[in-house]
């Protein structure tokens, strides 16, 4: 599926990585980082297993939601699948550890458990960056998408510090 199937919604100021399951699978395979995939809880689409496997491989959270929720994204013909493109680059924890050790620095990480407000995460990231924290580890579930608000609150620190999303 080519890129013209990708669509931007202006109402919510969020980009969605295509609304067809094939486009989402293609986006994941091409290395595009996704914040979250929303799937209609009643969907029996033949691509659902493939999407689930790909999401599991890349640690992308899946939310099973009612069709009304998908309709609220103002995307026509979503086929029961909507994916949200990540604003923040997520890193693999092991890769970050190896990178820090190879650089000859002493690793210092921050794990956030149960902090759901993305603005608080932004504020924490700002302080953590000043304190020399190499990476912030957040759980895959229970944290909202790190969007423009979080980046704004962090004063850009979320762009400078590695964010690792791990399976909780």
């Amino acid at each position, binding site marked *: 599926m080519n890129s013209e199937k990708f669509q931007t919604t202006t109402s919510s100021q969020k980009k969605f990585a295509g609304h067809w399951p094939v486009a989402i699978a293609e986006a994941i395979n091409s290395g595009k980082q996704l914040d979250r995939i929303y799937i209609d809880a009643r969907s029996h689409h033949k691509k659902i297993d493939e999407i689930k496997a790909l999401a599991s491989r890349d640690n992308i959270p899946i939310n099973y939601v009612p069709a009304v929720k998908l309709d609220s994204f103002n995307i026509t013909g979503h086929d029961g699948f909507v994916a949200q493109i990540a604003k923040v680059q997520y890193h693999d*924890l*092991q890769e970050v*550890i190896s990178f820090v*050790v190879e650089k000859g620095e*002493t*690793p*210092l*990480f*921050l*794990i*956030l*458990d*149960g*902090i*759901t407000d993305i603005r608080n995460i932004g504020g*924490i990231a700002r302080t953590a960056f000043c304190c020399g924290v190499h990476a912030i*580890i957040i759980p895959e579930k229970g944290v909202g998408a790190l969007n423009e608000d979080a980046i704004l609150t962090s004063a850009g620190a979320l762009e400078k510090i590695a964010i*690792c999303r*791990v*399976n*909780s």
Partner: protein
Amino acid sequence: MKAVDELHMNGIKVFASEMKAAKNIFDCNFKEPCAIVAGSEEKGIYPALLKICDEKLKFL
């Protein structure tokens, strides 16, 4: 919890922040590889996660 296991496997010590901890954060040596777990204001750290942390610290 997987993250804590991965950190342990890489020789990184994991500190948990807890209000009732005996040790103060200023008494800790952050010159060794370490990670700090911070929970939410309301619920704190998930009990199972707190259990597998190496040490508990209070921030003030």
